């Protein structure tokens, strides 16, 4: 089976066209302005509603997730259908911190235990909840837990040379198993209700517009940092090796490269970026539940990257924003149609537009 036909040429992958770069910078600038415009008086022509700010905050987190997937899939050729699990684990880590911060303000007023534990009749905090009252620890866990899980799954898979669709199915099974596990009440993660009703983060009450703006900028900052990091990796020697792994792994192995280590490190890094996205997502939307682990979420995130154009990084952002914009717009007036459109996107992008939206710009530039 020749993998080369499936992927865009390497040469142009790191050079988004001028149009793309303009789109990217313009888009980020507009995003950065949103919370400011939200502060304008209601009757101003430039006023932006709370809804728009909240929704675009969500999309920023999705875009970080899309970047993580693009790094693994677009460069290293690892199609993970379980990145939603890393995202959700990061979200749960941050959610645990937020739950601990509720303190005695819960419905049952218990000084330490979250409401659902009191409801279950638990009297002590389980050991895996220790330390989550500290923000740095929670943030560390939001990166470390997805990283460790990816390290374990990746190590088991890559050392047995499980690649391609097998890896995809295994990662899908992983997120499915985690979803089943997190739905259980006795896991100590709130069962199918998950965590919600958060009060504050880093000393600021979450229900103020100031806090929302702060979280928004934190997410935007993280997106920029993740983009720069991925770009740096893509342009480094490691990035070249990754592309080589994607296109001809056996040849690279014969040349003496330890492809297992290369794939593992990029898979772990990608999972950590996804975890970071989840950690930023939860305080923004104010809820996390096991539904985030559902295999459908992960594969939807893959389609953002496919639509945008994989192996370009900018395409991941483009795809995440455009598909989610389409989803938000369509589900508001024709919810029945959305799944047809999403399914149609899967079909259309694989058959007609293998290089995604970014590929459209690139082709024009090439000529």
């Amino acid at each position, binding site marked *: *089976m*020749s993998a080369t*036909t*499936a992927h865009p040429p390497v040469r142009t992958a790191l050079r988004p066209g001028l149009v793309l770069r303009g789109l990217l910078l313009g888009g980020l600038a507009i995003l950065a302005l949103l919370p400011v415009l939200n502060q304008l008086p209601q009757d101003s022509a430039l006023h932006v509603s709370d809804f728009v700010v909240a929704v675009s905050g969500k999309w920023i987190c999705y875009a970080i997730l899309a970047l993580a997937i693009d790094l693994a899939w677009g460069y290293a050729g690892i*199609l993970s259908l379980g990145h939603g699990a890393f995202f959700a684990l990061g979200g749960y880590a941050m959610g645990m911190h937020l739950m601990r911060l509720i303190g005695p303000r819960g419905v049952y007023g218990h000084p330490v235990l979250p409401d659902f534990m009191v409801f279950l009749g638990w009297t002590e905090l389980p050991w895996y909840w220790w330390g989550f009252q500290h923000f740095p620890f929670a943030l560390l866990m939001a990166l470390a837990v997805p990283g460790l899980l990816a390290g374990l*799954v990746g190590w*088991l*898979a890559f*050392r*047995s*040379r*499980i690649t*391609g*669709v*097998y890896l*995809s*199915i*295994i990662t*899908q*099974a*992983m997120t*499915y*198993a985690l979803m*089943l*596990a997190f*739905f*259980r009440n006795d896991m100590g993660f709130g069962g199918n209700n998950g965590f919600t009703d958060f009060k504050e983060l880093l000393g600021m009450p979450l229900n103020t517009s100031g806090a929302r703006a702060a979280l928004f900028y934190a997410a935007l900052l993280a997106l920029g940092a993740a983009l720069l990091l991925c770009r740096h990796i893509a342009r480094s020697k490691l990035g070249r090796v990754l592309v080589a792994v994607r296109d001809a792994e056996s040849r690279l192995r014969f040349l003496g490269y330890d492809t297992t280590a290369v794939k593992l490190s990029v898979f772990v890094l990608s999972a950590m970026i996804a975890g970071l996205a989840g950690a930023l997502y939860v305080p923004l939307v104010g809820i996390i539940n096991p539904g985030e682990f559902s*295999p459908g979420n992960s*594969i939807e995130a*893959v*389609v953002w990257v*496919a639509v945008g154009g994989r192996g370009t990084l900018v395409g991941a952002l483009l795809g995440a924003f455009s598909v989610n914009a389409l989803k938000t717009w369509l589900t508001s007036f024709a919810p*029945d149609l959305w*799944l*047809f459109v*999403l*399914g*149609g*996107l*899967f*079909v259309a*992008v*694989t*058959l007609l537009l*293998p290089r995604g939206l970014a590929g459209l710009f690139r082709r024009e530039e090439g000529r």
Partner: protein
Amino acid sequence: MFRLLCLLASLLLIPAASQAQESFEATAAPLAGSFTAQAEAVERLGALGDPRALPLLQALAEGRLQKQADGTLLIAQNGAVREALSGAPAAGPGEVVRINNRVRAALRGALGRLQLMSPEEAVRAAAAEGLFRSRSAENIPLLEQALARETVPAVGRRMEMALAAARLMSGDVATRRAGIATLGASSSAEARGLLLEARAAGAETADGIDAAIAAIDGRLKLRQMAETAFQGLSLGSILLLAALGLAVTFGVMGVINMAHGEMVMLGAYTTVMVQEALRGIPWLAAWSLPLSVPAAFLVTAAVGVALERGLIRHLYGRPLETLLMTFGVGMILQQAVRLIFGAQNREVVSPAWMQGTLTLPGDVTVTQNRLWIILFALVVLGLTVAAIRFTRFGLEMRAVVQNRRIAATMGIRTGRVDAMTFAFGSGIAGMAGVAVSQIDNVSPNLGTGYIIDSFMVVVFGGVGSLAGTMIGAFTLGLVNKMLEPWAGAVLAKIAVLVGIMLFIQRRPKGLFALRGRAAEQ
């Protein structure tokens, strides 16, 4: 003791009384009289063995028997009042016939006897069951008598249990030991409960009771193991059906079809449609399920051909794209079915011959429909193997898989074989849907639950090996069901998933790795 003598006396009266059938009315008349007359009448009615006495005495016991001023007896039932003897509608309600404790005691004996001697098997069985629960030493002679007359073995066994339970309450140690022996030879949890109670009550027979309980426990454990094994086989047969189509499309063709679960779903909906189409034709309606099998095969095979020719063939050699694309197709199919049929569950009626349970030796009960599904899965497996081994189509299919270009030069139309193979795999998934409709809710997202499991089966068994798929399906089914009592359903599933991942470490090609030329695929 006096009551016991009365019972014995009345039992002796049975042959004499049964000759005097015409005196039923005369015997029943004193029920309207004094308590003493009532009690005597009840006992004589019980001895008479006339089936008409049963509703009469039941009405008396439940306070539904009424009398008019002239002594005519009435029975109130469901708000209507009828004359007790003729059954004619009564002019109006009468006075409720009152009874005292003596009459009540007589009623219990008489009702028990009438029911135990009833010509209807179900009534006798229910009466034995009732006496097993009420367990009183007073019932011993009655049960012995009934047991001697019983001709149906199943009812006889219930009476034996009831008799043993009654003997357990006897004052006589030898009688108790006989009861303990009978209960200990059974394998019922209820008998175990009775024995435990008796153990707590008296020490004289403790050793016998302990041995009996141990014997029951051993048999219960064995039965539980057998039932777990059956459940495992049943789950395995479902997995086999769901994975078999995938073993053809993924294992043989190398096409990863994430819409495979939706093919199963379409098969289940075809079953619903066939059932509804045949509802108007009574003589055909009973056969709707067998007729659904070819219908589901054709429908899903047609969808499969359209999918392969229209979309998948453009992506050969690009498995990851195929995976994403077919996932999108699955989404579209799911949503289309949801819009056409609604999101709620649809019901498929099981035909009579699939309903109910079957009791195997050792009191192991299995549900008929699951037994049929296991058979069905094996038949489908046999047909699949036969189709690949012995037909022209199977030969061409294997040729194309081994070497497409040489097959093409030999004059095999490879494109057509691809389409047929994919249709074949999809059709098998459709037939799986017919089976799934019998045990699972038919809803638009029915397929999503099967896709991951099916892939696990195929990967575990060894891609490209049908025997591996079968062994894989039954192994996973059995392991899952054996873990469930310990770990619960969810953890068992997770454990199986983790187990497969670890297994692949040792045998990356699955249980039955292909060797030789085919392995290079």
